[in-house]
Structure formats: structure tokens, C-alpha cells
């Protein structure tokens, strides 16, 4: 299936509300990347229109390309800007993408530094969280498949497994013991490895 066809199928999934309660399942570590653009001076069109445009082409470029490590994401708006919420396989892959001169990010970033940054007409920000295996929990009720569930695996919530997993997060025992085989939470120090 072509990347575009895959993406179109994804879009149709993203509009269909799933009734009931669901959660996201992944045994791997992952990265949550939040990135925003803020238009500080609305009339400085030349500063921000191009930037928004390159943001759009970056998102298009990432669509349906799991080999980059991009798992999925969603876009929200805020006062004077847009914010992207993305899920990545690892920090290394996110970094590799952002520094690759052949991908859309690097030229966009250089352009921003050259033309816009000093003037202050546009603001940029990002936050990245490295989430260890099992160090998350999520619930989706009557929404389309979205967020982490769409980026990983979407499963019905509140089966025995899920209740136990949530309890283990609460007790801080989510990443150990192997007493309970049903909780298939890997123990690998993935996050340390990625950062190092």
C-alpha cells in the first residue's frame, strides 16, 4: 500500500468515533514531542506565513513513513498559534530526522534562524518527554482512535490486564518483578540507552 493510501485510510479512521472505553498499549519506550509556533506580530506576514507553510510540508513528509520513527500525532491550536503533539519511537530517531539536511526540518530551522529569530515576530517552542516502558496510562471514551492509541495499539480499556497495569503504575511497580506474566511490560532501560 502506498504511503498516501495508508494515510487516507488513517484519516478515515481518525474521524470515526469509537463507542466505549479504550486505552493504548505499547511495551516499548517512546517519546512525546510537543512543538508549537506562536505568531507574536500578526502583521509580519512574511515572517510567519512561510514558517507555517514549512510546518505543513514537514507534517506531510512524515505521513505514512514509519521508518523515520514517527508514530503519529495530532494538531491543536492555541492563542496565536498552532501546536503539534507527536509520538516518536525514540529520541534518536527524532533527532536524526530533525538534523537530516535532506528532510524538511533542517532547512526550515535554518531559515527561521536566519530570517525570523532575531526580529522576534515569531516564537517557537518544543518539549520532548522520554517515556519509559509502562510509564504511561491513557483512556479514550467515545472519541475516534487518536493520540497514543493511534500511534501504538488501541485496545479496550478496563479488562483485568489494564486494571492491573494501572494499579502497578500507582504502586510504582510497573517496571519490575515479573511476578505477573500477564503484565507484559518490558524492563529494558530503553530511555537511558536512548539518551546516552
Amino acid at each position, binding site marked *: 500500500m502506498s504511503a498516501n493510501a495508508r494515510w487516507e485510510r488513517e484519516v478515515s479512521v481518525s474521524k470515526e*468515533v469509537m*463507542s*466505549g472505553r479504550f486505552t*493504548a498499549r505499547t511495551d516499548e519506550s517512546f517519546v*512525546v514531542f*510537543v512543538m*508549537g509556533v*506562536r505568531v*507574536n506580530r500578526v502583521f509580519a506576514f512574511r515572517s510567519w506565513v512561510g514558517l507555517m507553510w514549512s510546518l505543513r510540508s514537514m507534517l506531510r513528509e512524515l505521513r505514512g513513513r514509519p521508518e523515520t520513527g514517527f508514530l503519529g500525532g*495530532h*494538531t*491543536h*491550536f*492555541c*492563542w496565536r498559534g498552532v*501546536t503539534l*503533539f507527536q509520538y516518536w519511537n525514540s*529520541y534518536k530517531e527524532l*533527532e536524526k530526522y*530533525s538534523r537530516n539536511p535532506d528532510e524538511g526540518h533542517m532547512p526550515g530551522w535554518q531559515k527561521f534562524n536566519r530570517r525570523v*529569530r532575531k526580529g*522576534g*515576530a*515569531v*516564537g*517557537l*517552542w*518544543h*518539549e*520532548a*518527554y*522520554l*517515556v*519509559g516502558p509502562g*510509564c*504511561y*496510562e*491513557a*483512556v*479514550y*471514551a*467515545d*472519541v*475516534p482512535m*487518536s*493520540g*497514543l492509541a493511534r500511534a501504538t495499539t488501541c485496545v479496550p480499556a478496563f479488562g483485568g490486564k489494564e486494571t492491573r497495569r494501572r494499579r502497578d*503504575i*500507582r504502586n510504582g511497580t510497573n517496571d519490575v518483578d515479573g511476578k505477573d506474566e500477564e503484565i507484559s511490560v518490558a524492563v529494558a532501560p530503553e*530511555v537511558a540507552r536512548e*539518551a546516552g
Partner: protein
Amino acid sequence: MAKVVNGRFTAKMDEPFAVFMIGMRINNFLAVRKWLPTVRAMGPMLRELHKHPEKGFLGADFFFHLRGPMLVQYWRSFDDLEHFAKNTDDPHLPAWRRFNKTVGSDGSVGVWHETYIVEPGNYEAIYVNMPILGLAKATEHIPAIGRRETARKRLMREKPGS
């Protein structure tokens, strides 16, 4: 309106923390009596949290898309978040019960949340020409210079003991 701070800044937090994203989706715009109370339930909760920092709430930012708002909240720990969510004296539980009674699973309003537990040093952040927001507002807003200049340096720098 928040004041823009020119230059490069980052957030500093030496402790673990939790990021909590919560959103709602209006599936049926005509069901105003279902979604309006859901939207309005968030205000009192945030006011209560801002008034009582000892509950473990560090800060929040507001985002929206066409079908509804979402909040990104920063918490001291998952325990604090859960305690607030389940404590009968705090406004969340009554609001949640009300939601279950009035909306329940009729599908007119959808809700979702995601929580991530972030260990010390497992985050990095940069803010360029931005007002103080996000993690920096919730924790400490400091210039991204020297050992905090690049993403990798920031990530390594925040490791405990470094």
C-alpha cells in the same frame, strides 16, 4: 496577555514529574446541554488547583481544535494527580459523576486523557521568543545557554548527578 520573552530559554526540573493531557471532543454539536456543562466543569477545577499548589499541580496550558479543548497539565507525581482525581472533597470526582450521569456513554461527548511519568533528566525543552509557558511555567524558566544550548546537551545535563 502573556509577555513575550525574546531569546532562547529552557525549563529546569530536577525531580520526576507527570504530564497529563486531557481533552474532550464534541461529537454532537446539537447536544449543547451535554457538552456545555462538560466544558464548564474544567474552570472550577483549575481554579481550585491554582489555589492549592500543595495538591501537586504545577501548571497547565490550554489548546483547542474544532471539536473541543484540551489541556496539558504538569504534576509533581502520578500519585498527586490520582489523589486529586479520586478525592471526594475535590471538584473532579463530583464532576466526573455528573458527566457519567448526564452524558454517560450516549456518545454525544467524548473524553480522553494520557499521562506520562517523566523521570529526572528524561525531558528537554526550548522556548524561542515565547511567553513563559508549558513546562518552564510549571517549573523553572532559565536561559538556554552554555551546557543547555543544544537538545542533546540539555538532555544529558538534566541527568541526575550530572
